[in-house]
């Protein structure tokens, strides 16, 4: 009886020591789940999810405080990827988040700009070039379309221009026509 007790206690102590040692020696810095979630988010840093940027939103999702359907720039595809990563079900956009919009970039009307730098301070990715009393301009290739610059402008000179696809960014369509035909049409038997 005593030997059994001693053996069990010794085992418990040993395993506890191993666990404790591993917890200290192999501790992972930071939260890898947050990084994985952040890797899926589109980095628009627009705040539409009601968090001040993509990393804070990722942290909130990892902590279970935020749901995965709050990011319009990520679109439904983004929600699906998050659902897959976290092993949850897909949920569509709710009523309290805006619907996804087509990707756009900001454009400053240089005739109206007064060089106040308010938009420069607002841009989360430093995509506006300019200085006090100097002309401001959007660096098109860096703009994520977050629209955070539009509101602070005192003269309303910033507009959002939808990016149209060009010959280099054009994508082939999903061959849905073929599938839809087979599913919906009343196909004449002579055609089979």
């Amino acid at each position, binding site marked *: 009886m005593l030997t059994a007790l001693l053996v069990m206690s010794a085992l418990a102590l040993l395993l506890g020591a191993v666990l404790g040692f591993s917890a200290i020696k192999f501790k992972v810095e930071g939260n890898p789940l947050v990084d994985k979630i952040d890797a899926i988010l589109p980095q628009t840093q627009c705040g539409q999810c009601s968090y001040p940027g993509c990393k804070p939103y990722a942290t909130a999702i990892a902590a279970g405080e935020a749901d995965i359907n709050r990011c319009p720039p990520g679109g439904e595809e983004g929600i699906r990827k998050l659902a897959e990563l976290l092993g949850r079900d897909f949920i569509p956009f709710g009523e309290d988040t805006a619907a996804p919009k087509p990707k756009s970039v900001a454009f400053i009307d240089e005739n109206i700009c007064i060089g106040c730098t308010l938009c420069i301070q607002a841009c989360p*990715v430093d995509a506006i070039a300019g200085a006090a009393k100097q002309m401001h301009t959007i660096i098109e290739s860096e703009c994520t379309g977050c629209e955070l610059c539009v509101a602070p402008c005192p003269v309303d000179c910033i507009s959002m221009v939808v990016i149209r696809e060009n*010959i280099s*960014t054009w994508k*082939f369509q999903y*061959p849905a026509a073929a599938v839809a035909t087979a599913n919906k049409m009343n196909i004449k038997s002579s055609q089979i």
Partner: protein
Amino acid sequence: MRKLYHFNGGVHPPTHKTESTQTPIAQAGLPSRLVVPLHQHAGSTAKPTVQVGDRVLKGQLFGMPQGSVSSAVHAPTSGTVTAIDMQVVAHSSGLADLCVTLLPDGRDEWAPRVSTNYLSTPPEELRLLLRLSGVVGLGGAVFPSDLKLRPGKHKVTTLVVNGAECEPYITCDDMLMRERAGEIVRGAEMMRYMLDADEVLIGIEDNKSEAIAAMQKAVSENNFSRMEVVTVPTIYPGGGAKQLIRVLTGIEVAAGVRSTDLGVQCFNVATAYSAHRAIEHGEPLISRIVTVTGNVQHAQNFEVLIGTPVNELVALAGAKPDTNGHIMGGPMMGVPLPSDHVTVTKATNCIIESSPALFPPPLPEMPCIRCTRCVEVCPADLQPQDLYWFAKSKNFGKAQEFSLFDCIECGSCSYVCPSSIPLVQYYRFAKSEIWANEREKEAANLARERHEFHLMRIERDKQDKAEKLAQKEKAALAAKAAAAAQPGTDAAAIDTLRAQVREIAHPDAGLNKE
């Protein structure tokens, strides 16, 4: 007898070649206008070097190559530049791209041309000449040829010249070989010289007996001892670069691997011809042979100026009223054109006028029954039904695992599918989605970096301000202490002390802050 190797799969569609080989190559002549895209090659768009209103000569530079992967674009004839703007081009998307519109003046006046003796010119200069002459691959990939003539990691032992032309209806290479074999062969020798290759193998399908005879005659007349014309079996897609390399040399070039790293390079016969015209005659690439066939009165081959509108070209062959579409290329891999107002580019090897009789509309797509007929015919040894499964469910990771990017989009799988599934369209969709995802990912990574730097910059500015504030307070305290310790000091001493204190508090005084 030279040993030939074998690749798996392949199909034998009806060839429809004799329709367009009854008459020799005709000259298409000058159309009413020429619309020359500045991006008709793989790589970066050429930068326009002319302006609206300029009068240009035939062969004059229109567009300068930009970046390492690029090629030049030239005026196909003499005339006036009437516009440099976005025009709909011959592309699957039907979108517009930057083009130079030229109004011919009818004189067809050449700009000065310089002949080069290739044997006394170093290969790098010849390559630069080809880049500036706009010579790109005319087999369809329009890759800048100068880049393909650069030596790789290993020595190039074999230069393969592709005269196979396996796709039905297309006969432009066949006619070029029959009529201009000498120039092709001399161009091939120039390429061999640039690559310092040991041998040149010209692969021609066995259904082109006249072309084989003409090319063999040209090789022996020029005494090119290291060049050989090899007859290969007729099978589609035996004219694909990878397939032809495999048949002639046994080497299998995987996707993403440079063939020069395996000691072999492959060029189309028309590219060899253009290289010869550029080097020996100083003529930039401003025209090419185009087969006009299908639903026309007289199918034939034309020598066409780049930028010729398709409808004017087809009119030369006699358009028919029941034509319901225009295909650029062949029936297996061709691109349906958005309209016949687009113009001929360097990639246009054939225009097929389609009609409901020639190309009936496809049957509706039925489910895949895994009959594996597609596996039997795939020349890349892929599993098309699995790729279809993953592409259809948008499982792009799995599709790449099953080697989606090894697919050469030859269309053999769709050709044999009993369920009428447009397999290649699914793969094209999957590939373009994967590329778009990669672009978005890169953009997102960049945005993340910029955002993190933005946050860091704000943090750093905040800290700087806090430091300066702390130092200012420290200096103010020190001044108070100094003043309290010596109450009777005269004003001058106090001034000196104040100056010293100011020194401590604002060490970089005199510089403009903020």
